[in-house]
């Protein structure tokens, strides 16, 4: 019992540098440690231009969300094109890490579907969507400042519009002389 308490207090008050068990558990710490291996913003934009992705938009993430710095939105013309965008980014990451002992690839999510693929390369997250998915999820409206506020304002205006109720009664309208 005393040993457990002693170990806990040591973990609590010891310096973060003296805790090697932390390294490797978190994907973020591993990514930050080898940031130069993964893709940066310029390389991602170059790749997206090469594969002819439509409507590429770079959105800086607000400061309160510390899990990423930039979000890149790109539209593919078809399912095949969206998958091709993801494959091109992975290929670029492999080319950049040629000769490294332990290759570190960006995590890819949604490659089976092909409607919305997310490539997580550390501090830059790339969203490759087809046209319908981009219109449906409306990520620009969510992440641009004031986008959600505008949506709420529209909903409020719709709620305040006076709608005349239909007259569903079977009786004929009575004329009051």
């Amino acid at each position, binding site marked *: 019992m005393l040993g457990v308490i002693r170990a806990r207090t040591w973990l609590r008050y010891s310096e973060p540098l003296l805790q090697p068990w*932390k390294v490797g*558990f*978190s*994907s973020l710490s591993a990514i930050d440690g080898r940031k130069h291996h993964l893709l940066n913003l310029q390389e991602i934009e170059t790749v997206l231009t090469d594969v002819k992705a439509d409507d590429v938009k770079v959105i800086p993430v607000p400061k309160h969300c510390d899990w990423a710095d930039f979000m890149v939105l790109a539209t593919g013309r078809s399912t095949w094109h969206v998958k091709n965008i993801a494959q091109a980014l992975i290929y670029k990451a492999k080319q950049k890490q040629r000769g490294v002992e332990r290759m570190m690839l960006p995590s890819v999510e*949604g490659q089976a*579907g092909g409607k919305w693929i997310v490539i*997580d390369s550390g501090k830059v*997250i790339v969203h490759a969507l087809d046209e319908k998915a981009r219109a449906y999820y409306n*990520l620009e409206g969510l992440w641009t400042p004031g986008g959600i506020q505008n949506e709420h304002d529209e909903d409020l205006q719709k709620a305040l519009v006076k709608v005349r109720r239909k007259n569903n009664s079977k009786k004929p309208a009575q004329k009051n002389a």
Partner: protein
Amino acid sequence: MAAIFASRCSRVGRSLFGGLSNSSPGLFTTLHEMTCKNMFSQQQRTFIQMRTVLKVVDNSGAKKVMCIQALKGKKGARLGDTIIASVKEAHPNGKVKKGKVVYGVVVRAAMQKGRCDGSEVKFDDNAVVLVDKQGQPIGTRVFGPVPHELRQKKHVKILTLAGHIA
């Protein structure tokens, strides 16, 4: 076990406070009630298993779902795991209807989960975001706080749609 503990407490109370004064039994009952409340009325923080009712925190149209299968682990699902659920309550004009069997990702769980820095994260409620078989979210927005552990579980789409990341 609970009944045994309560009966033992009451016996000890009678033997100790039996002949002291008129106010002492009242004092003991309040203490006894407080201990029982603290012990037995607290929510049990366990795994999400079959017949667990969860809150839906996206705009897919469902309000409450009931877990019918946890897709990982023997005991049940935890934070970030995928479950199969049946819709129990739904909005009339939503994308999913009552009785439909759906997939869901647990984004908030009452059971604590350890983080790599030694701290633990736990929430007041159990909440899910409905997804399809490919993992695409059915709704377009996620309400409330969402932990960043979902990034390690490869649910970056849910993190993207969420408003607040804990």
